[in-house]
C-alpha cells in the first residue's frame, strides 16, 4: 500500500468504513507491533498493539491527512508505548560514572565477516535487554532513528518535540545503549536505566 492509498483508506475509515480500517490494520499491524516490541519488549507488545488500534479507530475521524498516515500511526504507537511504560513501576535511573570508555568486542570472524552481520538469538536478546535500560523517551527516539530509519524531522513530528530535542534524545539513547551493552559483556547491574 502506498501513501496515496493509505490516505484514501484513512479518509474512508474516518467516515466509519470498517472495511477500509481493516485494510489499514492488515497493512500496518507489522509496523505497530515492531515498534511496540522494540520500545516495550515482548511481554507488553501485544497488549500495546491492541490498544494502539483501538486508539486509531477512536481518533481516525480527526485524521486530516496533513501528514502521512504512517507518521500519524507512528505517533499514536509511540505515545501508547510511552504511556504503558509510565504506568509501570518507574525504574531507578542510574548515572554513568564509568572511568573507562565503553567497548564492544569485535564479533567472531571480525567486522568484515558477513556471517557476523546476522544476529544470533543471544545477541537479539542482549540488544532488547539493553534497550530496556535506556530511558523511555530516548529509547523511542533511538528506535525510530536507528531501527526504523526515520529522519530527524519525522522523529520530531512523531514525538512532538523540536528537531534539536529529537537529536539530543537519539544521541543520549545511543550512548546509554552502548554503555549498557558493554557493561553486559562484563556483567550488568540490573538495577535500572542508564542515563546522563
Amino acid at each position, binding site marked *: 500500500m502506498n501513501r496515496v492509498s493509505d490516505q484514501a483508506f484513512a479518509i474512508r475509515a474516518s467516515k466509519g468504513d470498517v472495511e477500509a480500517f481493516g485494510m489499514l490494520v492488515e497493512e500496518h*499491524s507489522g509496523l505497530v507491533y515492531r515498534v511496540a516490541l522494540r520500545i516495550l519488549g515482548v511481554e507488553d507488545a501485544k497488549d500495546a498493539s491492541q490498544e494502539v488500534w483501538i486508539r486509531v479507530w477512536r481518533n481516525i475521524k480527526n485524521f486530516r491527512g496533513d501528514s502521512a498516515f504512517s507518521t500519524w500511526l507512528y505517533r499514536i504507537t509511540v505515545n501508547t508505548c510511552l504511556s504503558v511504560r509510565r504506568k509501570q513501576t518507574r525504574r531507578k535511573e542510574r548515572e554513568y560514572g564509568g572511568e573507562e570508555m*565503553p*567497548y*564492544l568486542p569485535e564479533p567472531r570472524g571480525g567486522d568484515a565477516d558477513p556471517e557476523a552481520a546476522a544476529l544470533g538469538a543471544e545477541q537479539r536478546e542482549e540488544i532488547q535487554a539493553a534497550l530496556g535500560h535506556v530511558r523511555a523517551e530516548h529509547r523511542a527516539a533511538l528506535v525510530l532513528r536507528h531501527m526504523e530509519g526515520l529522519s530527524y524531522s519525522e522523529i520530531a513530528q512523531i514525538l512532538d518535540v523540536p528537531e534539536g530535542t529529537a537529536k539530543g534524545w537519539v544521541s*543520549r539513547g545511543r550512548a546509554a545503549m*552502548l554503555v549498557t551493552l558493554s557493561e553486559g559483556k562484563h556483567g550488568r547491574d540490573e538495577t535500572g536505566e542508564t542515563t546522563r
Partner: protein
Amino acid sequence: MTPAGEQRWEVLERIGSYAAGELEDEEAREVEELLFERPRYRGLAESYARMLVMLATLGNEPVEAPEAVVGYAIRKAYFSAFLRSAEDFAGALGRSYLDAFVYYLGLRRESYGGGT
C-alpha cells in the same frame, strides 16, 4: 554527575554522532583528530559502529504482528460501528416517537411548509 563525568559523557555522545555520520564537516574533522590521538576513542567509535550495525540489522528483520492483534482490532471496530449505528437508529426512533407524542398532545400544530 561530576564535571569529569559530564565531559566523558559529552565525548561519548560526540563520538556516537560521528559514528552515525551525523556531524558537519568541521566537527567530524575534530573528532577524527581525537580518534587519531587516542586509541581508546578509536575503540569507542568502532564499538558504536558495531552497535549501529546490530540495531539496523535487527530493525530490518521482518516482524509480523500476532494474528490475534489484527483480528481483535477489526472485531472491535465492527462492534463499535454496530453500536454507533444502533445508537443512531435508537436516537432517530426516539425522536420520531417524541415528535408523534408532542403532536398527539396537541402541543405543536402540523405544518405543511411555509404556512404558520
